[in-house]
């Protein structure tokens, strides 16, 4: 357990009587990893993160964030976690300098040099008022505040949603650079998959309140493969593959995405259905995501 930055067991949350937003998930984020938490809008990502931050009480299950229960000891959790919320709102009437001073006063550790370097990297000055910033700059300020307290864990709840592609790319690049400079655990929740692939070393995929998958990205990519099968005649109607996530047929050709790929699987398919061509394709994270939740 000590190697885990975040660990949940059977975590559940219901809104009202019927809507179950999180349906008993077991999440394990190793320390030092960059964990990308994927899911469509409404999958339960933000609810999970709010419970991780102690902003929302869980209905069932247990949570440990950096070894502390966020409900029982929220201060210990929050002093170790840098957090950027989805559509983070801060005090717009403050200047960046005032906001940094305000934020700094809550933390025991604070890296002023990092503040200055990030400000210059993002081309921000302390006298700018928050209400005059663009969305990208606003998100950058939120990121500076989350990083400069020198947190052991950074939780980013969809910080890039709503940013235009250029700003999004710039934002992601700066995150990658910063993360390379210091070794931290990062828990990055998003639904924009292609931007985070370079970043991730662990991936969790959330769908409809369930955690469909949670593993290192390489393992995920090894496990989830697409099989391209071409038949002489038409595609057999009874074509069924163990662990099949998706099947797309067109003429004599069929593309089957499976979640538990192994070499023997190809032999089994070849022996059973005798395709003319059988090849294994490696998928991008986005493809895997779409195959799993689409």
């Amino acid at each position: 357990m000590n190697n885990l930055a975040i660990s949940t067991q059977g975590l559940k949350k219901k809104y009202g009587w019927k809507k179950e937003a999180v349906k008993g998930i077991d999440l394990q984020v190793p320390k030092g990893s960059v964990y990308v938490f994927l899911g469509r809008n409404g999958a339960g990502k933000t609810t999970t993160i709010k419970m991780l931050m102690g902003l929302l009480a869980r209905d069932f299950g247990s949570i440990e964030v950096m070894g502390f229960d966020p409900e029982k000891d929220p201060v210990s959790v929050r002093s170790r976690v840098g957090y950027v919320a989805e559509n983070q709102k801060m005090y717009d009437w403050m200047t960046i300098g005032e906001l940094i001073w305000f934020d700094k006063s809550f933390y025991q550790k604070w890296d002023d040099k990092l503040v200055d370097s990030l400000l210059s990297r993002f081309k921000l000055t302390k006298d700018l008022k928050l209400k005059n910033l663009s969305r990208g700059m606003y998100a950058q300020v939120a990121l500076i505040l989350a990083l400069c307290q020198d947190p052991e864990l950074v939780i980013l709840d969809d910080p890039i949603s709503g940013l235009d592609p250029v700003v999004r790319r710039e934002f992601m690049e700066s995150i990658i650079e910063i993360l390379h400079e210091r070794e931290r655990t990062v828990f990055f929740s998003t639904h924009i998959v292609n931007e985070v692939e370079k970043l991730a070393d662990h991936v969790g995929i959330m769908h409809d309140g369930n955690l469909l998958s949670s593993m290192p990205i390489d393992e995920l990519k090894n496990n989830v493969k697409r099989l391209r099968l071409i038949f002489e005649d038409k595609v057999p109607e009874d074509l069924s593959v163990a662990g099949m996530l998706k099947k797309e047929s067109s003429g004599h050709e069929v593309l089957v995405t499976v979640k538990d790929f192994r070499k023997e699987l190809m032999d089994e398919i070849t022996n059973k259905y005798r395709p003319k061509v059988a090849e294994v394709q490696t998928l991008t994270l986005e493809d895997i995501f779409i195959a799993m939740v689409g």
Partner: protein
Amino acid sequence: MRTIGMKALIWKELREYRMFIVAAVMILIFFKIVCVIFWKIYPVHPDYGMYFSVTGWALLPLLFSFIGSMTFTSEFQQNTKAFLLTKPFNTSKIFIGKYISGLILLIILSIISFLLAGDIAGTGNKNIFWDYGPITTYPVLLPVLTYNLIILASLMVRQSLPSIFLAPLLLIPETVIICPFMICIYYYCSLELVLPLIALLFIVLNVALSYLAWQKAVAKDIKPWKILAKTCAVVFVLAWTFHVMISIQSQLQVNYAKAKAEKAGFDFNIINKMCENVPDEQNSAVVYREARRKLESIKTKFKTNDVIKKSEEHKDWTDWDYICSYHYKCETVKLTDDQMARIRKVLIDDEDIVKLWSLIKKGSDLEYYRLGVKSNDYNAFTEHWVDLRWIMSLIESRTAALAEEGRVEEALASADVEFKIMHSYAQLTAYFYPTHYAISSYSYDKIIKSLLNVPLDPAMLPYLRKLMLQSEGFKRIDFTEQIFIDSVPMVYVHYYENMMVRSNPKDDSYDSGFDPKSAVLYTNFIMSPYLKKDTASFLLKSTMIMEDLKTNKPLPRIQYPRDFLNGKIFMNNYFSYALYDYLYEFEYRDATKAVVSDMFKLSIALKIFKIQHGKYPEKFEQLVPDIIPKLPAYTGDKGKLQYKIIGNGFSISTGNQKSYRLGYNKEIYMDR
């Protein structure tokens, strides 16, 4: 570092709402300008300043309301809640920080408004000083209460504007919840503390509920109605449990105190008998009612001019005016000897007046019930009270008339009835007012005056000498003890049992005075612990006095609890108020009796001296030994009675403050 967090939070709050301070200053400056303009245009009116400063003050609660409504809701409305709450800072500390910031703003606003409003008040009139009262007394808690109520409302609805409208409505359930605690405050504290403590109680409740609402709002992200309802239910049950406990405790106190009082000699059964249908011939109320009817017929009978034969200068006066106030009108109005003799004849011989006198004598001698009115009927009470005064006055006149006729025995008998009617009057007073009014209803000097204010004629010497022989028996002063013994059960019944629903509809001369339903709600349910505690205390203290009376010891004040003699309890304890003057009277009762007796004796001696020598003596010593063998104890060296010749008459008084302590602070003044 955490303290720095608190400072940062307070800084942020103050900075965020600094516009309120600017707004308050702007508004008040605007008022000042308007005020100055008004003054320039129309300078004769001096009150603009006060008007505008009061208006400025009135704005404050509005500003407090806005601050209260925005302090917490702004985090929800601006969606900055997540940003603030994810700081490593306890949610309770955030609550405290925000709450304190609001209070600081409130204080700053108050000081600014106070200073500027004071300046506005002085516009055009340097003599107007701003009243600093509101800032120093408990009403200052009311804006704080408003602030707290609105915080709670704002946390419940998470909207600033609706919370301002919701806040006053919250007072209703809150009052129901903490009503028993309010009663406990009445029960345990003196009156001057009650209102501030009730305001504080509301503030504490609102802070506690606001805290819960805040914690619920930030931790679970749901609206806090459920937790508030649960908390209120707990507070409600606790409050009422406490109330029931102190009710039982106070009931036991009353039972104990009443048993002790009965043992000491207070006759609470008299009160019970009052409720029975006392036969008319034994009920003084019935006899008094007849006397009052007789009084009406006498008034009607003497609305004439036949006795006095009124002169031009007094054409508005009827015979009745002279008859009922003979004892003083004969001094102030120049009447001929003939006219005075005619009035005296009517007073002594008129069959209706004689009948009235006998009725009063009879009624005063009866054991039961001398009130004759329903206790809730204040109009009837006043009427009865006024009638008793008329009757008293008429009997005083009759005593004076008999005295002037030299009929000593009859004059003294009349004076005796005068005492009795005074006693009834005092009882009636004791029933409706604190009994110290009843004590002051006794006018010794009036009775002495009606017996002594006779013409300075040698023909009066036999009368005065006989009176001197009887003066030793002039010990009617004991009646203050009797009124005490009688009125303690009356006060008990009137302020306690009557309120505890006790009525006898069969007897129209006695009634509880309370509608039973409202009495049940008011006394048994709401006020009973307070009422019972006071009742018990009253009975115990009365018992203490009674025991001292029985042993006939002087009553050193130290025997009584300090608070009892202390002005503080005066305000909140009606029963103590009722007893207050007894203590002073009783402490010096022996001295008081002696002083009154001495004043009477000396007055007779002075009258005799004047008849013999044609003038009053320079000092008391000249009366010895021809008229009195020796000076009474309270004259001479002790010098406690002061004697002065005034015009044709004289005055004897207890004079200085030291003598006042004797318990007798009246003066006998004779103007002839």
